[in-house]
């Protein structure tokens, strides 16, 4: 008992070290992304004041001075980082003039997050069972059909899926006009169906493929033979023994998948005119609204990086065979 407790203690210490290391890495990455974005943005010719009717020299100078854009780049960067630490993302210069970027993010992100979360949920909930089915029916017709569908799925960019859906289910075929073309959160669940399907189709196919190969791997293991020899039921072998092991690589991929769903959101949000953060980000780039670009990039990047980190840590906790001391191997 005492031995067990001390082992747990060691594990907790190692775990703590690992978490600290990962957190440090994540912060460094966020810092680098922030700097890179800032420098890239300042390198771009053109400014947020240009596109409206040309302002006079004096106005321009005054505007630049007001928003601190007359100083050298490195001082601007330092100032920005300082403000960022205080939780101040600045104000929008153009798109929603003088509105705090943080409040814009607060308004737009939940919309994106809701669509993304639904898409990811259905991708995993459908993808994993389909992968299991394909692995279990290996070489049979079901497997071949699923493989064709999944390979097709990972070959279609989400805008292709979205356009096909729009053309068939949103007015192209008159009798099939079930879903609205333009997203409207107040209109209920119908608005969510097409965007979530389009967004989740690629991750679904990817998950199914991953699950299939992981399942095949674990079905070939010795302990499955043992389970069979013991006379366990097929369902028990699959769900209790094989699937639990097969899920580990699937979980690893979940982190990048969150990122993909969010970024795929750029396109899907544009297609369905969803008032989400992804679409706003793309628009802010086209409008050169510097604080909005910076704010959304830093926010999304931090979100994705931290998500990756959390998934990695959970993965290490879930699988006791993985040696924490070896780091990322």
């Amino acid at each position, binding site marked *: 008992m005492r031995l067990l407790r001390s082992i747990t203690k060691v594990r907790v210490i190692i775990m703590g070290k690992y978490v600290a290391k990962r957190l440090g*890495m*994540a912060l*460094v*990455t966020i810092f*680098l*992304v922030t700097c*890179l*974005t800032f420098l*890239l*943005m300042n*390198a*771009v*010719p*053109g400014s947020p004041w240009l596109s409206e009717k040309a302002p006079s020299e004096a106005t321009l100078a005054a505007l630049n001075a007001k928003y601190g854009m007359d100083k050298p780049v490195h001082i601007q960067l330092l100032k920005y980082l300082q403000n960022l630490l205080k939780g101040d993302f600045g104000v929008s210069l153009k798109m929603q003039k003088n509105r705090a970027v943080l409040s814009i993010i607060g308004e737009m992100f939940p919309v994106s997050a809701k669509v993304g979360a639904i898409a990811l949920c259905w991708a995993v909930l459908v993808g994993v069972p389909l992968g299991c089915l394909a692995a279990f029916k290996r070489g049979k017709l079901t497997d071949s059909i699923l493989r064709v569908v999944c*390979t*097709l799925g*990972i*070959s*279609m*960019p989400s*805008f*292709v899926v979205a*356009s*096909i859906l*729009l*053309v068939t289910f949103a*007015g*192209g075929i008159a009798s099939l006009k079930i879903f609205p073309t333009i997203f409207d959160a107040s209109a209920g669940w119908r608005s969510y169906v097409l965007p979530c399907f389009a967004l989740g189709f690629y991750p679904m196919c990817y998950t199914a493929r991953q699950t299939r*190969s992981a399942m*095949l*791997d674990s079905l070939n293991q010795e302990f499955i033979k043992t389970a069979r020899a013991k006379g366990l039921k097929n369902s028990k072998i699959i769900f209790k023994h094989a699937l639990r092991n097969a899920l580990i690589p699937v979980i690893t991929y979940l982190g990048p998948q969150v*990122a*993909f769903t*969010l*970024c795929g959101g*750029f*396109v899907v949000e*544009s*297609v369905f005119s969803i008032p989400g953060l992804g679409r706003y*980000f*793309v628009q802010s*780039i*086209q409008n050169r609204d510097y604080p909005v*670009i910076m704010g959304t*990039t830093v926010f*999304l*990047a931090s979100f*994705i*990086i931290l998500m*990756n*980190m959390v998934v990695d840590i959970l993965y290490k906790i879930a699988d006791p065979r993985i040696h924490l001391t070896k780091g*990322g191997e």
Partner: protein
Amino acid sequence: MAEDKKMKRCPVTLQPDVEGMLSWNDFDADDFESASQEEKEDFIQERQSVSYWKDAWRRLKKNTVAMVALGVIIFLVLFAFVGPYLVPYGYEEFNKGAENLHPFHYALEDQKRLEAEIAARTQTDTMSVDDMIEQAKAEAEAKGEKLSNVEIAKIRAQAKVNTQNTKEEDAVDPEALLGELGIKKKLFGYSTAELERKAAGESVFPHVFGTDMYGRDILVRVMYGARVSMSVGICAAILVLCIGATYGAVSGYCGGKVDAVMQRIVEVIYSVPEMLVVLLIATALKPILTEYVNTGTGPIKSFVAVLGPNLISMFIAFGMLYWVTMSRIIRGQVLQLKQQEYVTAAKALGASGGRIIRRHLIPNCIGQIVVTTCLQIPSAIFLESFLSYLGVGVSAPLPSLGSMATDALSGMYTYTYRLIIPSMVLSVMILAFNLFGDGLRDALDPKLKK
């Protein structure tokens, strides 16, 4: 040789065949003649050695799916790079009078029949307004009066109401009418003027996929789009190959502190959200490079000008972030391979680190390198189409499959083919590269096959 002398041997005995061995030393005189050239060659070429590539090719040939995918890729390459020379239209050529053509047409006589039928169904007695006014004037003059402006206005108003009524009554659906008349669609798009020219005996190249709102031929645009996608895919994959393989090999071979530092850098880049940064880099570099092309000098400038600032900025964005996976794979391989004896031997012979990496390590993980490069192509095409779709990829006159799809969104229901054709070409291209890559992996690395 006296066969009967041989003792009858039990077929399964383990005893050596002494009788046979004894006869080895019996030589005839002609056994000592020198071998002819033919015999020598036969002796050497008895069994041809099978090289690594030949072996892989043999396995690949058995894989039907991969071979079909290869066929599709070759077809697409021809389509994209040779196709535009066969079609007499340019990708930014506005064909006047051929706007908004569908990928099908109706024959001239059918069109005339259709017009006649529509004219017959709509009221034939509608006279043009001017005619009516003329008529009224003539009548008035006959009576010896002059038509006042008020009356002319009355007639005009009456005529307007009439035409409106006929328009409403005239809800003759051309689609239904086509069915009734039994007019069938014919393949390919032709404008009326082109049909007339064709009837006059000129040879006119059809708009196979129709035209867009400016009369640009969609087939040619799809060809150029496929060309852009494919060049981006292949160039980006090669870029990733160069950076990733070098980085991974150096990191794996050096080991120790160098490896640790290099791997930290890899980890940081690995966790950067790629799409976000690529989007930013592509937007930021485009104007910078454009300015450079306009003002700069020297050979680099002309190089950038030839490829176009858009493509270059995309390559840079891609090259900066996507080599990480490749470098991880190569590093893993090199870590294993550098323990091998031949590396030790090469070291003992005084080979430098660079030479060992170039001549021994890289060639030994060539299978992995080829497979990863091949699977990198579809992901680059994917990214390019995303960027173009969002409007930060390839810009204006040059078409890209992604931007063609965006342009088509506005007329999605009327001109569905404009959306579907580029999307399909793009999907088929990515699918073919994916399937071929999978096949290649199975062929080059049979251990991985599941």
